[in-house]
């Protein structure tokens, strides 16, 4: 595991992606520590009177040239709403990098499908870039309730083909990601997924049936983020394991889904 840091990062850009989701771009003078796709950050929420704990947020993207870390925040409760109100020039205290990583391709022949749902698409962007840089093929399949909930599509298109589903049919194919026609066409060697648990369970079921190696990034409720509190456990074939240190990425064969 790479060394962990506590850093005060400066907000250099804030982009409102839609009504609910905000993209924070963070930087500092010194080069950012190495972060790998799938890892996450525990951010401190300052000035919230009703919350106390940090918020675990996955690494959306690392722009090495600009020395930027991108975090996508879904403003749901008091804590994340406070994060959504951050302005350029504000400081965000981050513990990073935490957790394990997605599995990188081992061959340029690998054909990897990344399936995301809702704000769960966030960690797939950086992973997609890394796969492309490695020279393997990456395809994105992104699902949401409606067109405006599909996030960062232009960014995803930089690294691979993007397919979408929406529950109301307002963009891409109507329905769920597991019904999308690309699943029949592609000859995928690996699926990595992140999103709501019912979606990931459905993806895992598909991958089992199609005999494709598959891993899922879990979003379990978490307190410490470093394996101390044992709150974020997931039942695995070897008993309860912390999503923060043994995960967040688990091979589906280890999960009891």
């Amino acid at each position, binding site marked *: 595991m790479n060394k962990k840091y506590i850093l005060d990062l400066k907000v250099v850009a804030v982009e409102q992606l839609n009504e609910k989701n905000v993209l924070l771009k963070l930087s500092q003078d010194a080069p950012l520590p190495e972060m790998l796709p799938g890892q996450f950050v525990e951010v401190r929420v300052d000035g919230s009177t009703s919350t106390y*704990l940090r918020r675990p947020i996955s690494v959306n993207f690392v722009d090495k040239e600009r020395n930027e870390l991108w975090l996508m925040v879904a403003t749901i409760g008091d804590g994340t709403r406070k994060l959504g109100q951050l302005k350029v020039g504000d400081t965000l205290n981050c513990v990073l990098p935490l957790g394990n990583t997605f599995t990188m391709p081992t061959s340029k022949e690998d054909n990897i499908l990344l399936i995301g749902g809702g704000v769960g698409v966030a960690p797939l962007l950086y992973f997609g870039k890394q796969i492309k840089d490695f020279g393997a093929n990456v395809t994105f399949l992104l699902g949401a309730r409606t067109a405006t909930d599909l996030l960062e599509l232009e960014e995803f298109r930089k690294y691979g083909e993007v397919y979408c589903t929406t529950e109301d049919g307002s963009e891409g194919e109507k329905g769920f990601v597991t019904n999308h026609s690309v699943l029949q066409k592609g000859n995928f060697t690996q699926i990595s997924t992140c999103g709501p648990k019912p979606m990931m369970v459905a993806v895992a079921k598909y991958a089992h049936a199609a005999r494709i190696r598959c891993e899922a990034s879990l979003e*379990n409720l978490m307190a410490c983020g470093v*394996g101390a509190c044992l709150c974020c*456990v997931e039942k695995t074939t070897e008993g309860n394991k912390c999503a923060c240190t043994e995960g967040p990425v688990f091979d589906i064969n280890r999960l009891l889904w």
Partner: protein
Amino acid sequence: MADLSVKIDKLKLKNPVMTASGTFGYGLEFQDFVPLDQIGGIIVKGTTLKAREGNDYPRMCETAMGMLNCVGLQNKGVDYFVENIYPQVKEIDTNIIVNVSGNSPDTYAETAEKLNQLDHIPAIELNISCPNVKEGGMAFGVTCAGAAEVVKEVRKRYHKTLIVKLSPNVTDIASIARACEDEGADAVSLINTLMGMAIDIEKRQPKLSIRTGGLSGPAVKPVAVRMVYDVAKAVKIPVIGLGGISTAEDAIEFLMAGATAIQIGTANFVDPQVTIKVRDGINKWLDKHSCKSVNEIIGCLR
């Protein structure tokens, strides 16, 4: 620079700041953030005779200025600690203290006896106050007779510093502290978490898997300070105070209420460096108030 050292029975602490069980892992989880040897004492996570899987997920939910948890003592058992963890922590130059839990006086004592043989574990903390396990745990900590029974049995087989961690979920915590003292406890620590509950009103179900859990964090601090004050008046053995401490000022409140040392728990999740910051803050406060030793403010209430 004031003298920050304190004594708990035979234990010498470099400073009164310790970490609370279950919030600091085995210390190793935090070594990227803090120099572990600068913490007064590290109380490692709850250890039982046999491995425990703990409760089902979800095990935590955030509440106003705090959190509920129902982890349920997940751990790999005392033998695993002795064989795998102890070799990794024994060279850390601070007091490594093991928190011990059980489901009968005998299992507490057997676990304690195994730890008694470890040269670099100078003390244990008996957890008779875990609200999240069905049998044992808090059951022993809510009556004087139950607390006395466990302490008596452990005392026969454990010969180093014995700390007993008390439950706040009782009518009269001072009488339970006295019962532990009478059976030979060397110190008491308090408070463990307060029993609580939170409900998801859309799902109409509790937010925790076993419905209830233990409340910790700043929300519980005033309750903890009051209890430390009551217990410190009632016993002669040292009192270790904990419950919602996240700043040096919080820690000083506990010291003034009568605690000889303090533990930091949930705040470690928010600031992994909080222990050292609290230590430095206590030192600064003492200097500012021309105190030469932290002992000058312990129980100093006017």
